[in-house]
């Protein structure tokens, strides 16, 4: 970027469609399905047969309330459904039943992004392009599968509080974790149970005027979301710097080519003709409905992270890392609760939850990747004991990593492994002094430098000791003995 160019700040709002994991559809008793043969989950209602009428799924309301509570939204005491009218083959009635001026949830926030609203609606069916079939003068044909049509959706709309593609991705990860923990959705982007659109605009840094926004549709993975938004920001900057103006339009990001293309022509301006759905009656929340939703709320990632920070003194990074993958948090808490007893029963107090957190989020994840640690061979109590051994200086960091390798491979008790493998730390006794003596003997050069005051020369000495002891020596102790033996 040249020195004369202005810096731009992206302003991003997200619209997320979440398929609820109810058993049946939003307005009929057809079972939800993914991947079943086409048109095997349809009925008069979700096919839009003449005369059929919708009836609201109680669990969809319940789930929407849970989402609203989790996002700190205000719950509408009375909300209604509207018809959103447009023609498309994936929309059997010619309108989508959705909430319009009175959504069931409004306001709220998740992390540092404010929520504008969250409302209930029904999903569209699936339109599959099958290419030329020769049906009418060789015209192109498409096929509709109504299995998905009518799946309950919660649409979550954020305020434009996101300012980078990376932040969008990170926030969406937090949302996904939150929803997964609520148990209201499969939140699988590839399968379409979590879908994200982004409203993107740019403005000069420091300005508080909103630029013209574009809507980037249906990015079906976290990576594509980040790339797509980045590409759109770059496109808009290029337009503005080239003296042009961003046009308000709906765009499609092609993850393969990286290209962004317009999805609708302007003359297809939409006029959805919203009006209150006369086939449905208002949803009026009762104390019981709200209490039932509250009762099922688990501790959510953002709350958990806060608790880890304030109650356990974890760093913000550790707290988020453990909280945003709830299975890690659960494992961490199980380990924390299994206070080791006996010889190594030094309490895990003070900064030790942080040490345990580091071992789990660092060393353990490095070994098991995305696997749920509860499914690994490393019992929570085992990693807790291992950390206790390290903290008691009974094993060194290096040796402990070897113990962890063993635990991941075969499970077992860390103390027993230390015993069997002879990985116990060589304490301050004669054994370590003897190894240090040999090390100093083998490297007069280093000894001379050390005596000359160059403490950096201790490296090869420590390295020698570690090799000789297979890592069982404590680095600090080695340094102390070196100083002692050289009279420094």
């Amino acid at each position: 970027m040249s020195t004369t160019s202005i810096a731009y700040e992206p302003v991003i709002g997200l619209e997320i469609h979440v398929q609820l994991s109810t058993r049946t559809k939003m307005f009929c008793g057809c079972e939800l399905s993914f991947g079943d043969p086409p048109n095997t989950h349809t009925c008069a209602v979700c096919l839009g047969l003449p005369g059929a009428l919708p009836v609201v799924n109680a669990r969809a309301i319940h789930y929407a309330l849970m989402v609203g509570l989790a996002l700190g939204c205000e719950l509408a005491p009375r909300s209604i459904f509207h018809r959103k009218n447009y023609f498309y083959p994936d929309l059997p009635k010619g309108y989508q039943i959705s909430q319009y001026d009175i959504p069931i949830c409004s306001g709220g926030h998740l992390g540092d992004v404010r929520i504008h609203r969250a409302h209930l609606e029904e999903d569209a069916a699936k339109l599959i392009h099958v290419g030329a079939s020769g049906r009418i003068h060789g015209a192109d044909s498409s096929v509709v599968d109504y299995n998905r049509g009518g799946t309950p959706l919660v649409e979550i709309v954020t305020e434009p509080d996101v300012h980078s593609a990376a932040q969008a991705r990170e926030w969406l990860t937090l949302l996904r974790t939150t929803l997964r923990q609520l148990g209201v959705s499969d939140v699988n982007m590839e399968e379409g149970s979590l879908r994200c659109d982004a409203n993107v605009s740019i403005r000069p840094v420091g300005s508080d005027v909103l630029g013209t926004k574009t809507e980037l549709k249906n990015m079906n993975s976290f990576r594509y979301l980040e790339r797509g938004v980045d590409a759109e920001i770059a496109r808009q900057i290029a337009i503005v710097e080239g003296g042009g103006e961003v046009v308000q339009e709906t765009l499609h990001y092609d993850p393969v080519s990286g290209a962004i293309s317009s999805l609708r022509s302007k003359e297809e301006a939409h006029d959805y003709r919203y009006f209150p759905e006369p086939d449905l009656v208002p949803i009026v929340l009762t104390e019981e409905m709200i209490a039932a939703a509250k009762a099922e709320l688990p501790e959510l990632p953002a709350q958990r992270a806060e608790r880890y920070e304030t109650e356990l003194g974890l760093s913000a990074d550790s707290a988020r890392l453990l909280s945003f993958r709830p299975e890690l948090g659960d494992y961490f808490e199980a380990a924390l609760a299994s206070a080791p007893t006996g010889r190594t029963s030094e309490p895990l107090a003070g900064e030790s939850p942080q040490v345990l957190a580091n071992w789990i989020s660092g060393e353990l994840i490095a070994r098991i990747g995305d696997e749920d640690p509860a499914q690994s061979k490393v019992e929570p109590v085992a990693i807790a004991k291992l950390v206790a051994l390290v903290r008691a200086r009974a094993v060194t960091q290096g040796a402990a990593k070897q113990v962890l390798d063993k635990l991941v491979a075969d499970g077992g008790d860390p103390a027993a492994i230390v015993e069997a493998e002879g990985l116990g730390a060589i304490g301050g006794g004669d054994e370590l002094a003897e190894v240090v003596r040999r090390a100093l003997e083998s490297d007069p050069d280093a000894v001379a430098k050390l005596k000359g005051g160059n403490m950096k020369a201790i490296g090869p000495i420590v390295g020698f000791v570690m090799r000789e002891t297979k890592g069982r020596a404590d680095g600090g102790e080695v340094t102390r003995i070196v100083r002692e033996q050289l009279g420094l």
Partner: protein
Amino acid sequence: MIDRAQVLHVARLARLDLTDAEVGTMTRELSAVLDHIEKIGELDLDDVQPTSHVVDVVNALRPDEPRPSLPRELALSQAPEVVDDGFGVPSPGATAGASS
């Protein structure tokens, strides 16, 4: 009053292909009906709540329990065009778009 251009716009929204003659008739007839209807514009309705339901029912909810779906053959039995176990339609082409 409604003019020809509005009639054409509304016909497009409603997906009705009107002939030239129909556009003319429609413009005339709708204008006459709207002239009559527009008398409600004279009423003072500022503080009046709109009625969209006359029934005093709320929370008509259904338990989340599956009910049998239609056999596919029956679901497809009335379709003008069946392709690959689905409802065949001409491709939307570039101009129309989905939304959700």
